[in-house]
């Protein structure tokens, strides 16, 4: 195992008593609990971590946080591997395995790097300009391009982890647990508001963790510990470390992705979720998300060993790692001087500090100077040397206006370059909340403008960079948020902490280090991950892509996994320079969720596998299962499709089920049908308006079939409705439409006809329904019933009775969907299974046979009964279906007016017919199209299609229902049905094939 030669002897937040070992690119290394993969690699002197997307340039660690564009790794193995993990965010655990990605055969020797040789022919958008000839070759070009696509690899097996979701409400959500966020949370919580504090890092403290300053005479570590302890002691506070607020949506709805077990690796507990998504509805939000340091844009600024100044400081202070031995700083603001001091104190040689500003005057700069470190005013790095690790920098003077390098170049050897081009507040969530940014020219950054939602930004996220001011602003924001949420209006903000404020000199932006005379900016990287250079930005502007959004899409700037956190502002500033526009006029691209990428798994939570979507079960479901039924999905219901006996094919089973029903008794679980109880003095009037036919004259105890349309006149649902009392009806609907029909009725009642006194209640779930059909059905039910008179005259077709069936109170309807004598027996759901059992046991002597939806479909098709959604598709009127007699002329009903529009009156509309293949053994596939004659050349005019088609065992032939243009006037004609391999002639007929006179209905 390699030694951690770059580990400092003391300090840091790592736990030296808990050493860990891990594997990177097949090599073993050591680290400690508290390390990230990045800090551990740096501790081992590993700077080359990955390769860039397009040119495969060697890349190292740029940052210490979630803004990292370069150090992306493939983490883990097998089904639990993760592509594109940022090494700077991966917490080290024992036996962690990671590898560089997008390189082959290895990160050190990567063949893809040949692209780099061609980089000059591959500027932004090159692919739009080539690969067009010869035309047929594009697919080969694309094949090659695709092989080069992507960064890491997807897992090749299902995810072993599970995920969780959690809804939560709070008065104040504080995003970011740096000093600002901690202060805000304290103030809000002290006012008794329910507070959630979320931070994406494993510890609270934010920038303070790397800073090493003093607050109120305490070390920053002590200050943080005290704040966290107080928050933890308050029960109205929820602390969420390792939790990234990823999205800020409408009406203060925010999502937080918590990484519960990622840092434990495979050692996590299987009973706990890997990650959890918090769905927060916050009354108020405080955004204390800090700021991102910007890189400098100079030649070869992407070499491993070149990093952000604050990151280097964090590696020293928080991780006790020396990122190098000999460092050159390059800055345009004072914050880098703090880092320089930290590094110097850690024993790292600071070779020089280059400052864009002529005379750095801040107190920190003075301190650095006092240590005898060379500060070079108005200097810049002209280029970095070294390939897989920076080895030196070439330093030159900037002219007065900083648009030219002048003087002679001086070479300074180094193994680390720390850069700081100023800070960009993390305004992502503010922007997602729809807030508009404003540009602050003094601080050279975009800051939040006016709030649109109940939200406020504070601290570095608000462009406030001094520690003392951050604390004050945090407290104020927290208290104001609590107050606005209705909590403790007279609490006060603690007085400003005592801390010697460090005067800072203003930042002087230098967006692009000019190329040396005769050179170009095509190695000046702006977007590291997508290899976008300053030259690409210039090219986009030259070619007319003058909107920042065009710039983004043409160059792919900001479209990588980091979404340009460190690069966007640099890019648009350079773009502005080329176009001669001010930065605020150039504007930013749109900030979109998520703040950092988030697993699909956590978005979905536990709604996977058997919980992906409910499966609705009837009270008899288990019986069907135990009999080996095959099921079909109908909406969320799972209904028995057919019940194969051992050795039976589907067709065998369906034939048997159909014949049994026609000849003896079949039994169907009809519990899924919608049942709606309709009551009130205006119930009949209401039904008159809903259905196409009339309802007022229906006698009590009788049933009627009805069809309902949408206002467009198209059939929407159908079913039988019974009149149970003077003001009491019982409507049935199709299985799939049960909820929609109830909602439809309520909508009309509540919104359009509030004067109608009607109440509708769903009874679907209260009742279980067994439908027994067949010539022997009466025998069976009569046998099980003593208090209903089954005599056909006393219990005629289309009527209903109440009584006890098999000892269970029941509502029995004599209606029929099969054409046979049939009774629908409804009992309370809890008794459904008992009823079914009894019917099966007692029915055995009559040959009772359970049948599924397939047999039901055959039986009703033999009768020409339609199924809404099969014979109809939203373009079919009741008249098309031949139901004209049911369409009232006397009253209005929903959709009536639509039936007299020119197109619904057209003579050649498609109408429902029967279709009999000339070859009686030929079962037409449903969905077949029907033509007059088959031409050899398309398009072939189609006159209709097959809606239902089966083999009818009873009729010993195939039958079908179809919608055919002018069909009703064409009975007897022959049409053609072209199939894949042949054309089947079929004869149009009336859509009733079985018992057209309806005798069988009486048994």
């Amino acid at each position, binding site marked *: 195992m390699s030694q951690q030669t770059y580990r400092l002897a003391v300090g840091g937040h790592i736990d030296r008593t808990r050493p860990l070992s891990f594997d990177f690119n097949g090599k073993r290394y050591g680290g400690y609990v508290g390390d990230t993969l990045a800090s551990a690699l740096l501790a081992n002197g590993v700077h080359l971590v990955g390769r860039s997307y397009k040119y495969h340039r060697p890349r190292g660690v740029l940052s210490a946080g979630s803004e990292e564009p370069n150090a992306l790794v493939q983490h883990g193995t097998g089904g639990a591997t993760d592509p594109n993990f940022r090494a700077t965010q991966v917490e080290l655990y024992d036996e962690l395995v990671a590898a560089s990605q997008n390189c082959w055969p290895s990160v050190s020797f990567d063949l893809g790097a040949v692209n780099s040789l061609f980089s000059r022919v591959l500027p932004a958008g090159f692919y739009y300009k080539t690969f067009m000839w010869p035309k047929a070759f594009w697919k080969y070009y694309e094949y090659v391009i695709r092989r080069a696509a992507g960064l890491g690899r997807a897992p090749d097996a299902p995810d072993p982890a599970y995920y969780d979701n959690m809804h939560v409400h709070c008065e104040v959500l504080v995003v970011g647990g740096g000093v600002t966020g901690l202060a805000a949370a304290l103030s809000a919580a002290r006012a008794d508001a329910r507070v959630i504090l979320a931070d994406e890092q494993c510890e609270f403290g934010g920038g303070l963790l790397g800073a090493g300053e003093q607050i109120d005479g305490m070390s920053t570590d002590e200050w943080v510990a005290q704040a966290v302890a107080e928050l933890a002691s308050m029960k109205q506070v929820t602390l969420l470390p390792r939790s990234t607020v990823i999205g800020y949506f409408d009406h203060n709805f925010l999502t937080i992705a918590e990484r519960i077990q990622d840092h434990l690796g495979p050692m996590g507990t299987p009973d706990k979720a890997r990650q959890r998504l918090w769905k927060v509805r916050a009354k108020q939000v405080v955004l204390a998300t800090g700021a991102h340091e910007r890189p400098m844009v100079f030649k070869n600024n992407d070499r491993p060993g070149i990093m952000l100044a604050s990151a280097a400081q964090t590696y020293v202070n928080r991780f006790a790692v020396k990122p190098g031995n000999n460092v050159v700083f390059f800055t345009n603001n004072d914050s880098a001087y703090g880092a320089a001091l930290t590094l110097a104190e850690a024993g790292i040689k600071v070779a020089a500090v280059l400052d864009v500003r002529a005379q750095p005057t801040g107190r920190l700069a003075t301190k650095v100077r006092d240590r005898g470190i060379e500060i070079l005013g108005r200097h810049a790095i002209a280029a970095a040397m070294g390939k897989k690790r920076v080895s030196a920098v070439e330093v030159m003077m900037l002219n007065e206006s900083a648009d030219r390098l002048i003087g002679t170049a001086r070479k300074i050897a180094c193994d680390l370059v720390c850069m700081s081009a100023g800070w960009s507040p993390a305004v992502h969530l503010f922007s997602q909340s729809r807030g508009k940014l404003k540009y602050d020219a003094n601080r050279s950054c975009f800051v939040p403008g006016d709030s649109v939602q109940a939200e406020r930004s504070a601290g570095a996220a608000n462009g406030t960079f001094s520690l003392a001011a951050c604390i004050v602003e945090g407290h104020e924001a927290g208290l104001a948020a609590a107050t606005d949420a209705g909590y403790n209006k007279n609490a006060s903000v603690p007085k400003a902490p005592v801390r010697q404020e460090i005067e800072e000199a203003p930042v002087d932006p230098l967006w692009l280090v000019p190329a040396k005379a005769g050179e170009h900016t095509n190695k000046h990287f702006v977007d590291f991950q997508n290899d976008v250079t300053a030259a690409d930005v210039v090219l986009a502007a030259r070619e007319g892509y003058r909107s920042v959004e065009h710039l983004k899409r043409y160059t792919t700037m900001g479209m990588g996994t980091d979404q340009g956190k460190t690069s966007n502002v640099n890019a648009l500033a350079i773009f502005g320079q080329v176009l001669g526009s001010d930065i605020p006029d150039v504007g930013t691209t749109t900030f979109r969720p998520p703040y950092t990428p988030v697993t699909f798994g956590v978005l979905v939570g536990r709604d996977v596998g058997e919980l992906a979507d409910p499966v609705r079960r009837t009270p008899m479901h288990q019986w069907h299962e135990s009999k080996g039924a095959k099921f079909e999905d109908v909406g969320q219901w799972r209904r028995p499709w057919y019940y194969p006996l051992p050795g039976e094919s589907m067709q065998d089973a369906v034939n048997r089920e159909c014949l049994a029903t026609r000849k003896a008794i079949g039994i169907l679980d009809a519990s899924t049908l919608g049942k709606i109880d309709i009551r009130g003095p205006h119930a009949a009037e209401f039904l008159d308006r809903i259905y196409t036919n009339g309802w007022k004259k229906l006698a009590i105890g009788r049933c009627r079939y009805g069809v309902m349309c949408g206002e467009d006149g198209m059939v929407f649902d159908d079913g039988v409705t019974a009149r149970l009392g003077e003001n009491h009806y019982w409507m049935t609907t199709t299985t799939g439409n049960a909820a929609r029909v109830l909602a439809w009725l309520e909508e009309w009642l*509540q*919104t359009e006809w509030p004067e109608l006194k009607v109440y509708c209640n769903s009874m679907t779930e209260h009742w279980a329904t067994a439908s027994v059909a067949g010539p022997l059905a009466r025998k069976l039910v009569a046998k099980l019933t003593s208090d209903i008179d089954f005599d056909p005259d006393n219990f005629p077709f289309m009527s209903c009775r109440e009584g006890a069936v098999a000892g269970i109170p029941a509502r029995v309807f004599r209606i029929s969907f099969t054409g046979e004598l049939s009774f629908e027996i409804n009992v309370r759901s809890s008794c459904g299974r008992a009823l079914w059992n009894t019917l099966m046991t007692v029915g055995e002597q009559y040959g009772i046979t359970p049948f599924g939806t397939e047999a039901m479909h055959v039986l009703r098709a033999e009768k020409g009964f339609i199924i809404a959604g099969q014979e109809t598709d939203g373009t079919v009127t009741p008249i098309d279906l031949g139901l004209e007699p049911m369409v009232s002329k006397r009253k*209005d009903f929903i959709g009536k007016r*639509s039936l007299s529009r020119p197109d619904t009156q057209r003579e050649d509309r498609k109408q429902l017919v029967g279709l009999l293949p000339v070859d009686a053994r030929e079962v037409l596939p449903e969905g077949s199209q029907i033509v007059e004659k088959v031409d050899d050349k398309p398009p072939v005019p189609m006159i209709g299609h097959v809606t239902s088609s089966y083999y009818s065992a009873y009729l010993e032939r195939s039958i079908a229902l179809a919608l055919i243009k002018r069909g009703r006037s064409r009975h007897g004609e022959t049409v053609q049905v072209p199939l894949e391999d042949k054309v089947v002639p079929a004869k149009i007929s009336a859509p009733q094939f079985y018992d057209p006179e309806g005798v069988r209905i009486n048994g």
Partner: protein
Amino acid sequence: MLLIKCPWCGDRDEHEFSYGGEAHIVRPRDPEKLTDDQWADYLFMRKNPKGAHLERWVHAHGCRRWFNVERDTVTHAITAVYKMNEKPPRSSKT
């Protein structure tokens, strides 16, 4: 996800509700008397404004009541909620 104030149940998440489109489209009294164009107007033509929109929602997974909402279609800000039999807020043009 919107937060909608049901006039009865108070603030609830959008997913408890179903949307019913533009409000105050009154079904014509005597449809048979309308021309095809007038009927098409009732059936299909919608204001679809950019800005304040009067619309209907139903608290489908709650109290099952329909009610009206004034919502800005650009910002999604809800500026009024009123029951079916109540008048729209005066600020909005109907």
